């Protein structure tokens, strides 16, 4: 049985190829250091176009379970077409996060229960590491997302740099960094949790 399973096997609304995505994931899994005996399941919701980007990474019964909105791999200039460099980055980020869950992030809640601030901080750390793999990364875009959920403050900017350049954070350290940002953030508490996620955007059954 293949290590990487991509769902769906055939795309009907977007010009994506499950085999290509599985191949990229297989290659990146080795690069990010995900143990060889961890199977990977990648679910892609092809109904979600740009700008509805979003993704999650959990480990369930020893299997890495990644979920992406189709927009996460989409070329912004050519509707419904696959952007390989962007897809590689997004896959690497979530594979890093799955690996984290097997190491210092074992205590972290499942993705659906993370706050937007925690999710943005974890993604900043993972994209920083992705940059050091030599993949395309978009640091300013990632920093904008981080600021949106952790504050437009000097403390938040310094924290972002630490996350981007660091390699070995634990879940407890990440929680503490988010708490520091929150303490310096003059904004009121967010009304609700955001970031696109499969639970909040699931199609009616």
């Amino acid at each position, binding site marked *: 049985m293949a290590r990487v399973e991509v769902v769906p096997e055939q795309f009907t*609304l*977007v010009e994506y190829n499950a085999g290509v995505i599985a191949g990229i994931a297989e290659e990146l899994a080795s690069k990010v250091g995900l143990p060889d005996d961890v199977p990977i399941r990648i679910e892609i919701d*092809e*109904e*979600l*176009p*740009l*700008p*509805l*980007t*979003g993704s999650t990474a959990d480990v369930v019964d020893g299997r890495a379970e990644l979920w992406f*909105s*189709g*927009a996460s791999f989409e070329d*912004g*200039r*050519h*509707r*419904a077409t696959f952007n390989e460099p962007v897809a590689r980055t997004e896959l690497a980020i979530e594979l890093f996060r799955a690996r984290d869950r097997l190491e210092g992030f074992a205590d972290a809640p499942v993705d659906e229960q993370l706050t937007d601030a925690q999710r943005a901080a974890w993604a900043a750390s993972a994209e920083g590491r992705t940059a050091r793999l030599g993949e395309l990364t*978009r*640091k*300013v*875009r*990632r*920093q*904008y*997302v981080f*600021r*949106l*959920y952790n*504050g*437009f403050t000097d403390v938040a900017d310094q924290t972002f740099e630490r996350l981007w350049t660091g390699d070995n954070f634990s879940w407890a350290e990440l929680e503490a960094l988010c708490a520091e940002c929150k303490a310096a*953030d*003059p*904004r009121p508490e*967010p*009304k*609700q*949790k*955001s*970031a*696109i*996620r499969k639970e*909040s*955007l*699931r*199609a*009616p059954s």
Partner: protein
Amino acid sequence: MKKILPVEELARDSRFVRVQIQEAMMDPRQMKVAERNTGSAKLEPERPAAPDRARQLMHGIFMGELQALEGAGRTTFDFDDEDVPFQLKLDMARQSWDESRHCEISVKLAEHMGTEIGEFSEATFLYEAACAEDALLRLTGVNRALEGLAIDVFNTMKLFGDNSGDPVLAACEDWMLADEVTHVKMGSDWLRRLTENDPERRERALEFQRTVDKLFSLGGFRGETDENPIQLARKFRQMAGFSTDEIDELSEVTVEAQAEAEAAATAEQRAS
């Protein structure tokens, strides 16, 4: 130099890819998303995918500013002094100057949000509304419809900046919003002056504006309900010379545009 420049001849480098707005609106995925309960469509930090929604909208604003610059510039050049008052041409020249600054500000804001020029495709329907051969239609199509849309978009983006605590975005959008109100006011004032003794011509121009306003409502992208990402900015439109009746009428046009787009998408889905 050529007068009335067709849209195909706008200067763009290889970063820009054009798309027909109908193509995006008829994307079968849009219907699928509409079937889901995703809550309010207003642009707020708590909305799903808010950062990328805001980045895409900011890129759209940049493209709109570029086309507004091209439109106002063409109006300055396309008409001779015997066609329109010289003062009108001066107003259009001043507007071109404003729009060029808006382009520069929008580029900086896009960079601030981590967006590259050309990252998203370009729809040219804004410039297309600025190609009318009658200067009066340009004033209604560009100054009152296009720049009116700009008021709605900038107000929405400014509120997003306020709500997300982004001081750069909020200040820049507020600054540009003030200019847009002036541009719409120019259109409103010139429409009145040029048709003072010709009510039929005024009515034709306003009819053109209704058509353009429906197009610019983008099948429900703009409106006054939670379903509309871009909210109609009543207060600023009043400041720009729109009467309450005109704003009410525009509100109805946005509802019609949304209903027509939904019906067309349903028909398309059935056909496929």
